[in-house]
């Protein structure tokens, strides 16, 4: 792997919070340009912390973050909640990053229209966030992150609060966009099925302290149609990941006793 197609590398990264919690210990992770990587793990394993460190929100205690040579690293972050400004219309929410960057007006108008078209929200420019459903709010949040033409999307459990149907629809839409735009995506989730459906590669993390326990490439061609979700290949990847998670969620003490059933583990994660 030459450094040209590396998006970023985290080496020996540790993060300890001021209350003494070790969020991450000795984490190594390389993400390639154009890759769709999911960070999968139980809550408290530091997957969101990784994302925040990459975004530059917060300092790592030790270790370093290196960006690839050819990478512009223009980032966009999508939070767990839509994080919209309730006092602003959809249009004004999407406009925010451009306004902060001081972009000129005619360009702004076009960029907003394009971003809203990408997430299928034309006609809702003048709506206020409270008038929208959870899924639509998330679309606005995604449009806001796309409006700056980023080359990397950092997504922190963006669809975690949505119902299953909305989630799978947004998953397909996200994959379509990813194929059009050739972004690098780092996607945090605790949902195995979502991780397998979306990713090139799933990085499994364990908690206390947060660390990488498995790095599993998902070797299935894109575009992934809905029937991929029911294919044997999909099922076998899900099984592989849930095994990795089962190992990850067992503390050393539990390892000495009888292993928990896979079903329990999946439940505790979902």
């Amino acid at each position, binding site marked *: 792997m030459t450094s040209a197609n590396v998006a970023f590398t985290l080496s020996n990264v540790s993060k300890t919070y001021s209350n003494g919690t070790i969020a991450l210990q000795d984490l190594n992770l390389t993400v390639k340009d154009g890759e769709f990587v999911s960070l999968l793990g139980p809550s408290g394993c530091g997957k969101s912390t990784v994302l*925040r460190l990459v*975004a*530059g*929100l917060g300092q790592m205690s030790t270790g370093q973050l290196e960006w690839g040579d050819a990478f512009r690293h223009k*980032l966009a*972050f999508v*939070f*767990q*909640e839509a*994080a919209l*400004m*309730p*006092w*602003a219309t959809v249009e004004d929410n999407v406009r*925010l*990053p451009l*306004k*902060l*960057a001081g972009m000129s007006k005619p360009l702004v108008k076009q960029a907003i229209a394009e971003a809203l078209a990408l997430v*299928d929200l034309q*006609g*809702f420019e003048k*709506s*206020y*966030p*409270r008038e929208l*459903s959870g899924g*639509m709010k998330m679309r606005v949040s995604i449009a806001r992150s796309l409006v*700056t033409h980023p080359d990397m999307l950092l997504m922190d459990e963006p669809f975690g609060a949505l119902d299953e149907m909305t989630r799978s*629809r947004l998953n397909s*839409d996200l994959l379509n966009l990813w194929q059009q735009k050739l972004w690098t995506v780092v996607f945090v989730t605790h949902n195995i099925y979502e991780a397998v459906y979306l990713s090139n590669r799933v990085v499994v993390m364990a908690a206390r302290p947060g660390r990488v326990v498995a790095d599993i490439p998902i070797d299935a061609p894109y575009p992934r149609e809905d029937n991929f979700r029911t294919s044997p290949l999909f099922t076998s990847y899900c099984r592989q990941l849930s095994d990795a998670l089962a190992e990850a969620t067992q503390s050393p003490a539990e390892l000495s006793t009888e292993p928990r059933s896979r079903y329990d583990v999946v439940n505790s994660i979902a």
Partner: protein
Amino acid sequence: MTNLLGNLTNSRRSTNPSKSGQAKQPSGVLAKLLSPDVLAPIAVGVLVLLIWEIGVWATGTPPYLLPGPSLVIRTLISEWGTLFPSLMITLQVTIVAFIGAIVSGLAVAILFTQSKWIERSFFPYAVMLQTTPIAAIAPLIILWVRQVVEGDQATFVSLVICAWIVAFFPILSNTTLGLNSADHNLLNLFQLYHANRWQTLRYLRLPSALPYFLGGLRISGGLALIGAVVAEFVAGTGGTRSGIAYQILMASFNLQIPKMFAALLMTTVSGIAIFAILTWLSDFLLRHWHESAIKREN
């Protein structure tokens, strides 16, 4: 996707006509006036006034002890020429002090959120301003102001200062709370897009603080009026620029109790009007997004 969008657009279309339909109905205002929210308190008020009037008449209570409501209204009309100009003076004091409190409260709150150190160092003194009894320090303020300002203006300035002291703190403390209540995800987002201090203040902290600020205004508006009246009581000033408190004071000295009641009524109505205007302003500014101004739809 198209299907979903179709549904969404449909539901949107169906909500729009009902909104515009509501606005077009002229009977909406009438229906509002006839609603229990309006009728019930009016009924209570009328009942109390009736009992009062009949009670005064039946027991033969002399007007210098307790005048009936009808006498108060008649006095209000006959004394309008002296009472109304006085009320205007008091309202002038109130409004100048209130505007001063708004400007200074907002400015100091912004200063506080720019540096934790400034807030730590100065906030206790702002609290002191609030806890000092205004009636106790009003004479002192009047005395000091007379050293600096000459003539009639001195009284006006000292009354404004007293009313300002009372009205300042609720605005300061509410606005400070509001400026610190910005959503953490949005603060992160602003940091991510390299927003500077001014942009974060202008586009995030100030709008987040707006509901809190307006809540502070509603408290302070009434307090400014009370502050002005109390200070005037203490000052006890006559002359050409005497306010409504002076009229209340003089009427009670001269046992013109109906006139005193009339002046009291004017003051109370003014206080209610200030509160109503500020409530309307708050609902108007927050109508699109804040829970306080939105009707529940279930």
